[in-house]
C-alpha cells in the first residue's frame, strides 16, 4: 500500500495493510511536523507532491527494501497540503518474520524517501515562508550525483 492524500494518516490502516500471520514484527515510523527548525518558530508545514511519480518512487523503494531484507510487507503513506504542527506527515509500516529486518527496512525507506520521492515541504514561520531544500542548492546528499545511485 502506497498512497498520498490530503487527509490525516490513519496509522492503524497501514499496520493492518502489512499484518501477516508469518510476521513476528511490525515496525512503524511516523514522521511528524515539528514546531521549530533552525531556530525559527514554525507555525505550519505544507507539502506538495508530484503524486504519480511519487507513488512510483515509493513502490520502487518497497522493491529495494524487499531485495535487501527478508520482509513480508511494506506500506507508505504521505500527507500533502497543510499539516498542523504535531501531526503525521509520513507513515511507514514494515512487517517481517523477525524484528531486525523490519527496523532496518523502515529506516532505509524513510531515508530513501527523503532523497528521491518528489514531495516538497514548505515551512511557514513568523515573518515568512521557505521551501525546505531549495536554499541549499544541493538536490541530493553529498557524494551522490543523482537520484538513481
Amino acid at each position, binding site marked *: 500500500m502506497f498512497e498520498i492524500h490530503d487527509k490525516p494518516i490513519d496509522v492503524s490502516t497501514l499496520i493492518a495493510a502489512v499484518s501477516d500471520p508469518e510476521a513476528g514484527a511490525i515496525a512503524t515510523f511516523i514522521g511528524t511536523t515539528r514546531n521549530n527548525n533552525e531556530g525559527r518558530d514554525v507555525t505550519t508545514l505544507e507539502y506538495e507532491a508530484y503524486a504519480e*511519480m511519487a507513488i512510483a518512487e515509493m513502490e520502487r523503494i518497497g522493491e529495494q527494501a524487499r531485495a535487501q531484507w527478508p520482509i513480508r510487507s511494506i506500506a507508505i503513506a504521505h500527507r500533502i497540503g497543510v499539516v498542523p504542527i504535531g501531526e503525521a506527515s509520513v507513515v511507514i509500516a514494515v512487517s517481517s518474520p523477525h524484528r531486525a529486518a523490519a527496523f532496518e527496512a523502515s529506516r532505509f525507506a524513510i531515508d530513501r524517501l527523503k532523497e528521491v520521492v518528489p514531495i*516538497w515541504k514548505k515551512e511557514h514561520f513568523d515573518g515568512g515562508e521557505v521551501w*525546505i531544500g531549495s536554499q541549499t*542548492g544541493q538536490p*541530493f546528499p553529498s557524494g551522490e550525483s543523482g537520484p*538513481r545511485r
Partner: protein
Amino acid sequence: MKVRVLFFASLREKVKMTEATESMDEGASVGELWNRLCQKYDSIEPMTPSVSFAVNREYADRDTLLRDGDEVALIPPVSGGR
C-alpha cells in the same frame, strides 16, 4: 515537437503556473529545454545547479533526449529532513 512541462514547489511559484507546453526542435535534450525555460523565465535561472528532471515520471539527465508528447517535470530539491 511539443513537450509538456510540469512545475512544482519553488519553481511553480517563480513561474506562477503549474504546467506549460513548449515547442522544441526534434532531438532536443532536457538541458536544452531547461535553457529555453531560463530564457523565458529568468527568475528560475539561479536554480540551475539544484534542479533535477524527470521525463515521463522517471528521473532523467540533462543529456536525455526528448520526444514529442513527453512529460517533463522540473524537480527542485525534495523535502529533506534528518
